[in-house]
């Protein structure tokens, strides 16, 4: 597949996945809100979890609904947005570097790796993959410095990069620190830090939506800038 077509497909697949994820969030939240409204009308409900053996009744459900909506659901979908964004950025870099690997010409390989490869393209993929695995563990601003060095797209803006750094730092706190902001969060987020060390991270709906919107925008901008540079 030509690189431009590959980037178009990556962009379109990423945007579709982001939209689906946001719809899942919105529709699932609405389902819980509907349940809360029904319960206010005095309906009786019992839910038994056959796996855990737990049973909940109508008087317990409104609080659980609120906890699930503002806690688990928001956090899980937010993390998924970030995951889709990472997939896009590294998918873009992978495709770009495989098409033109000259910037990796000084990378070293063992002869064993060469012998194990079936052809040149497989060797290139191996080198590209190693490069991107190292980059993935680095900070968000390092990703975009690398992207600019490699593809010279002129986007995203510095402001967008810093916002994305805070979004990624928030995601890391949710995944690795049980939702408690730590020194790393504050340091990675710089001027966009929303919480101080020790505070519990919140994902209010407006922030959740704005993060999704920013990710969507940056995916579109990077893809279109890349396509624009190709013959």
């Amino acid at each position, binding site marked *: 597949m030509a690189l431009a077509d590959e980037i178009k497909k990556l962009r379109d697949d990423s945007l579709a996945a982001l939209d689906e994820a946001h719809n899942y969030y919105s529709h699932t939240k*609405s389902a819980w809100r509907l349940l809360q409204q*029904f319960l206010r009308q005095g309906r009786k409900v019992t839910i038994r979890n056959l796996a855990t053996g737990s049973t909940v009744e109508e008087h*317990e459900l*409104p*609080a659980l609904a*609120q*906890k699930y909506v*503002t806690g688990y659901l928001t956090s899980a979908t937010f993390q998924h947005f970030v995951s889709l964004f990472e997939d896009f950025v590294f998918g873009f870099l992978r495709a770009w570097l495989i098409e033109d690997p000259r910037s990796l010409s000084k990378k070293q390989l063992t002869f064993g790796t060469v012998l194990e490869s079936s052809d040149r393209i497989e060797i290139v993929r191996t080198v590209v993959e190693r490069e991107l695995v190292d980059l993935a563990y680095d900070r968000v601003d390092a990703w975009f410095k690398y992207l600019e060095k490699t593809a010279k797209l002129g986007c995203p803006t510095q402001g967008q990069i810093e916002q994305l750094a805070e979004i990624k730092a928030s995601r890391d706190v949710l995944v690795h620190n049980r939702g408690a902001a730590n020194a790393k969060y504050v340091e990675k987020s710089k001027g966009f830090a929303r919480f101080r060390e020790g505070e519990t991270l919140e994902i209010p*709906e407006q922030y959740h939506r704005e993060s999704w919107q920013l990710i969507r925008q940056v995916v579109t901008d990077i893809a279109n800038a890349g396509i624009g540079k190709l013959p």
Partner: protein
Amino acid sequence: MQTMHHIATILGERGWDCCPEEFAFFWESDMIDVTTKKPLYVSTDGDATPYIMVPVQQIDDIRALLDANSISYWVDEEAISVDGKPEVTVINLRHGVNPRSVQQILDRAP
């Protein structure tokens, strides 16, 4: 009105000097959900974020009230209507906001 007259009479006998209109003010001081005619209240079950279910047609008034009292919150970005009834949405109180204080604000609102 008859009930208010009766209650005003009882209060008058006990030394409370008020007319039905004044009593109506006390009676109507809770902020009312205009669709259910019941007072709006802050739900605080379990350890979930406290919240208020609000008819969409009242959301601006309640937001103005919360803003005037420097209460941090966010509003759900969906509004749900069931069986053709007025749309309802949810105001979620942020961490650190005292739900009792918010309930008092709602209870005292004109």
